[in-house]
């Protein structure tokens, strides 16, 4: 579970976030919507502590991580899987190696340097790839996969990392409608099956309806309101 209260962030003299508050519980998918430049990505980066918020607090599973630094921050960050709009895969590595990237902290340095991955970690990465439907693409180079497949590899990397919170930035904005639907279905299933707390930024209303339990609109730096979702979607 992740809780952010009154997050404020000014970038290049512009107050991108003023008092953004959001709570995402285990098993819940919360969609973050808003026009381009409204601060959705900035909020995700603040939650992952890749950007320092100017004000506000962030709690991860009840632990205040707002002011953590050094090793403690790194340890806390491991529990956050960040899935990027541009996937951020290592292009020349295979899908399996990219997923193993989520296990870097667990693997001895010499094994990372020699790419001699431990069998246990390989098994975890293969299971993650299988879960996102890419078991047969394990050996394929990341830059030879389609956009949808690369997004799945990025999600598998977060799974292999063992994170319980997933922050997903515009996962479907560059994908065709069919692929987008399958990615959103996967995100939904992962939250339900594994109890992930998922905060996902989205643009299209139909995508929000497909995946989210709740939707929050970020406007003028504040999470202003909750959008109505159809019944059966578990409105928050």
């Amino acid at each position: 579970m992740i809780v952010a209260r009154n997050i404020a962030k000014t970038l290049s003299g512009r107050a991108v976030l003023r008092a953004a508050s959001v709570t995402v519980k285990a098993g819940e998918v919360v969609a973050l919507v808003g026009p381009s430049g409204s601060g959705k990505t900035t909020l995700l980066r603040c939650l992952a502590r890749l950007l320092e918020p100017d004000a506000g607090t962030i709690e991860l599973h009840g632990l205040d991580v707002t002011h953590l630094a050094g090793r403690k921050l790194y340890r806390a960050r491991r529990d956050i899987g960040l899935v990027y709009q541009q996937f951020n895969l290592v292009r020349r590595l295979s899908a399996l190696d990219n997923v193993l990237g989520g296990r870097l902290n667990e693997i001895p340095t010499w094994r990372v340097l020699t790419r001699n991955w431990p069998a246990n970690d390989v098994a975890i990465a293969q299971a993650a790839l299988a879960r996102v439907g890419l078991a047969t693409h394990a050996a394929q180079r990341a830059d030879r996969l389609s956009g949808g497949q690369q997004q799945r590899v990025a999600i598998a990397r977060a799974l292999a990392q063992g994170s319980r919170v997933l922050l997903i930035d515009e996962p479907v904005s560059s994908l065709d409608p069919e692929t987008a639907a399958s990615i959103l279905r996967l995100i939904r299933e992962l939250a339900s099956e594994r109890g992930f707390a998922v905060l996902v930024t989205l643009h299209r209303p139909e995508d929000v309806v497909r995946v989210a339990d709740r939707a929050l609109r970020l406007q003028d730096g504040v999470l202003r309101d909750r959008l109505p979702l159809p019944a059966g979607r578990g409105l928050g």
Partner: protein
Amino acid sequence: MRTRTLLLWLLAALLYLGLARIAELDLHRLLVGLPKMGGWVLRAWPPDFSEFPQLLRRAGETIAMATLGSTFGAILAAPLCIFAARNVSPDGWIYWPARSLLNLLRGIDSFVFALLFVVAVGLGPFAGVIGVALHSAGTIAKLWSETIETSEPGPLEAAAMTAASRIKLISFAILPDALPSLASIALYTWEFNLRSSTVLGLVGAGGIGQELKNAVDLLDFPRVAAILLVILTMVTIIDQLSARVRRSLL
């Protein structure tokens, strides 16, 4: 605007005139000297390959100097480029000293290093190897650090979310995508070093350059011609080989 442009042209012309004066450019001397050089070229034919095995041995020394020097240079450059790349440098305090060191190494030519090391280790190719290694370390580290700095930040950030150590992050998230460029830089430096190593003999650092200097000193032009042909062949083969490998990497 036109006056300003005219003034700039005038300033440039004055600058070049000044530079020509400092460099003692003298067209008359060139016109007088060229026929003399033409005479030498005529006297150089046919090239004297009577000591071809000796020339090959010296060419081998040059190749060894360039290859070992480039390899040791790359080994030295590996840690240096990490410290000198802003996006992966461990801390601010090491960045500037590392940057200064590689600028110093790059700023002094391998020729000058070899000249200094001839005093330390004596005449012969060993001094040349050290000279090439030190200068190459600076050149390779600078180019490698710039390649690392321009690598995509996304994969590094994604890997950093796992809280892995810096060495793991660099090895996993940067090296695979940057490796072809890094290898290409090292190969290009090797090519360059082979060409520059041919003159290291002038300071007593051995190699085919030593033979060239001896032959020129003795005005033995057929031998000079043979040496130049050996150099040309050697450089062309290595250039082609290196270019082919670099093409296959990218």
